[in-house]
């Protein structure tokens, strides 16, 4: 295989694997802030047990997130050297800010968070929890800013030509607040919240189904459900706003998301479907003119289609972009329905009577994870063939000096090590969850006397 494809496969694999963990840590972090805050406010031991329990699961997740994240920082240089030279002036300052402001904050407070229970006062510990949570949120900000700049470059000018060409920053704040960054930061945050909150819901639903840790699980489930309901609903708003941005800034991506080929015609909105790139036809269930309505509030307004762009300036994998995008939307809609229905039952006071609903929650932990992954796939594949939209193509960005054998070597290394890592992650999470928040022989208050 050629170097470009291998470099892309390796990057996609390492970033997708990495992206399992940071959203989980951000989401669990949010729930921990709530649990520990409730503990400090009410001094109810249940919340302390919950905080300590989730801290253990957080520690594993966070650790793997950091380990796999460092690889990403250096992979730009090893595999995408042309791209790194091209964007270093811009991308670099976002990365440096991430390291200094965000990663420094979270990593320093992490030590106190994980090992400080017996060394600092509860208040200082709570501050550390908030520090780590904020640090992980800021991390997301700078990383998404950098990626958004690739999607919708702003605040820069191109200097030099040919090999020496590169983007240089002219306006730092215009670069940071480029047209897509705010929408996408919020959307990514919300996706991360959902990933973590649904793990909390899943674990405690599992306990409730099994009849274990019933009292504290009910408490935890309610806190998490409240967050999940609000976030799923508001996710719709940031998603819509993000799509409107794509319409204006990356019309080729929008067209690929709905499989819309005609140069200028009203576009349909598909519930699901299958794109045939040869015949340029989509087979599926649609709302005629729906996309036109979503964008322009008019069913007959034309939308720029893929054929309006030269062959080599539009995404190649239209069906993949279409599918990934639609899976994300469907999951988002399902989560809204699920959390709203559960909240309704909570209000009626019958939430914990419905075993089948709890069972759905046990498995629903996978859904936000899948949505986060496919959402990024749609965003990144929809940007192709560009690595920096409108300026640098992916086929020009990779390291020419690295041979395909070298990449094959590192790719196999990553496959092996990451498989082991993933098994370890599942194994130790499962073990900690099966073990539970405290020894069941004694009640939680009993247990706490011994801590």
């Amino acid at each position, binding site marked *: 295989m050629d170097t470009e494809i291998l470099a892309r496969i390796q990057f996609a694999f390492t970033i997708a694997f990495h992206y399992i963990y940071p959203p989980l840590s951000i989401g669990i972090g949010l729930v921990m802030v709530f649990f520990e805050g409730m503990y400090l406010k009410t001094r109810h031991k249940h919340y302390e047990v919950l905080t300590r329990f989730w801290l253990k699961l957080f520690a*594993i997740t966070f*650790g*793997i997130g*950091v*380990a796999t994240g*460092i*690889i990403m*920082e*250096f992979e730009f*240089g*090893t*595999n995408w*050297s*042309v791209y*790194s*030279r091209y*964007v*270093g*002036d*811009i*991308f*670099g*300052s976002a*990365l*440096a*800010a*991430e*390291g*200094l*402001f965000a990663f*420094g904050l979270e*990593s*320093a*407070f*992490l*030590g*106190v968070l*994980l*090992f*400080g229970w*017996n*060394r600092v006062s509860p208040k200082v510990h709570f501050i550390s929890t908030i520090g780590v949570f904020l640090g992980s949120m800021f991390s997301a900000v700078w990383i998404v800013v950098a990626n958004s700049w690739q999607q919708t470059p702003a605040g820069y000018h191109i200097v030099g030509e040919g090999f*020496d060409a590169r983007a*240089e*920053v*002219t306006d*730092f704040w215009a670069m940071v607040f480029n047209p897509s960054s705010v929408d996408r930061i919020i959307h990514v945050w919300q996706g991360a919240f959902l990933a973590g909150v649904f793990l909390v819901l899943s674990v405690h639903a599992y306990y409730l189904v099994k009849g274990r840790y019933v009292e504290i699980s009910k408490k935890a489930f309610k806190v998490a459900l409240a967050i999940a309901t609000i976030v799923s609903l508001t996710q719709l708003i940031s998603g819509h706003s993000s799509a409107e941005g794509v319409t204006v800034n990356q019309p080729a991506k929008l067209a690929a998301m709905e499989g819309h080929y005609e140069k200028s015609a009203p576009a349909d909105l598909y519930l699901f479907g299958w794109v045939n790139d040869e015949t340029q036809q989509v087979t599926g269930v649609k709302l005629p003119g729906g996309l036109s309505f979503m964008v322009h509030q008019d069913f007959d307004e034309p939308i720029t289609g893929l054929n309006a762009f030269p062959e080599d300036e539009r995404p190649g994998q239209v069906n993949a972009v279409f599918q990934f995008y639609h899976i994300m939307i469907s999951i988002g809609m399902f989560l809204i329905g699920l959390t709203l229905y559960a909240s309704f039952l909570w209000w009626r006071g019958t939430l914990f009577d419905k075993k089948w609903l709890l069972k759905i929650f046990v498995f629903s932990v996978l859904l936000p994870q899948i949505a986060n992954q496919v959402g990024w796939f749609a965003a990144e594949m929809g940007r192709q063939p560009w690595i920096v939209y409108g300026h640098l193509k992916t086929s020009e960005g990779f*390291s020419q*000096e*690295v041979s395909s*054998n*070298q990449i094959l*070597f*590192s790719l196999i*290394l*990553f496959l092996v090590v990451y498989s*082991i*890592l993933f098994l*370890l992650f599942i194994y*130790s999470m499962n073990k900690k969850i099966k073990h539970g928040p405290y020894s069941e022989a004694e009640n939680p208050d009993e247990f706490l006397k011994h801590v």
Partner: protein
Amino acid sequence: MEYFLGIDYPTLWFLVVGLLFSGYAILEGFDYGAGAWHLFFRKDLSRRIAINAIGPLWDANQVFLVIGGGALFAGFPVMYATMLSSMYVPFMLFLVLLVLRSSAIKFRSAEKMLWWRKTWDITYSVSNILISFLLGVVLGNVIEGFEIGENLSFKGGVFFHFLSPYAVMVGITTVALFMTQGAIFLLLKTEGRLHARLTFLLKKGMIFFIVSFSVMSLYTLIFVEGVTEKFKEQPISFALPILALLAIANVPRLVSKKKYMNALVFSSLTMSFLLMLVAFQLYPVLLPSNIDPKYSVTIYNAASSQKSLGIMLTIVCIGTPLLAGYFLFLYRTFNGKVELDDTSY
């Protein structure tokens, strides 16, 4: 070109990167060094204590790697891109070993099975040694120079071209230096039998360092081009290796007086002096070209724009006090000897 205090921006950024790399070497030096000794401790409890000595700190220390890498990318994108893509294999190994090392710290004490702990102990020790070695190897390659041709692109190399004799020597010296640093740090954090064993191990480590360092220095002076010329040009720079030697010579004295904190400071100083020596030898070059000096990557042809460097210097000025505050808080919280409790690894 813009100046601050009479120093141009690329030079300032060169200093920032140098400081970050020194911080990385000093802090992760004792982390990796402590890990490198791991198999030399016999009892399971000793090994747990050694891991928990760096337990709350290593994640924070790793920040220097992340910021250092980011600073290189941001300030000298050409250097970052050329070095990483030319040193592809060592960097990939380094990164994968980092993952294995973090996993070992996290998972080693999670199970009681003997085979489990043994596997992780070996993984942990070996990965720490190899990580230190690879860092030295890359440094050795940078000092020797790269096959850089036109357009700042790398012309050399197959799979193992990075393992030149000189690079191997620098690698071994780095392992020795980190192991010295690690042993001193562990002396600071332990007591009893383990402490006594470490005092013994440190002596071995120091001998290891002095031998490897002497061999490497001789080789540098004789075989690496341009080193002696640079000393002749600026005789004052000869002070740096002498300072480094004096600092390391002071370590055994302080250890015998049980002043471990001071000993750690002096072995850290040794590292800083040696890195300053490398920086001084190179400046203003970042990656010397073996094909033709005019193709070398320098701080000027590798630098980001003045505007960008200015922004980043501002970021550094705001961020540094914050980071210093976090570190102070963290290190003060975990000051003193290791005590295992229910939150330990």
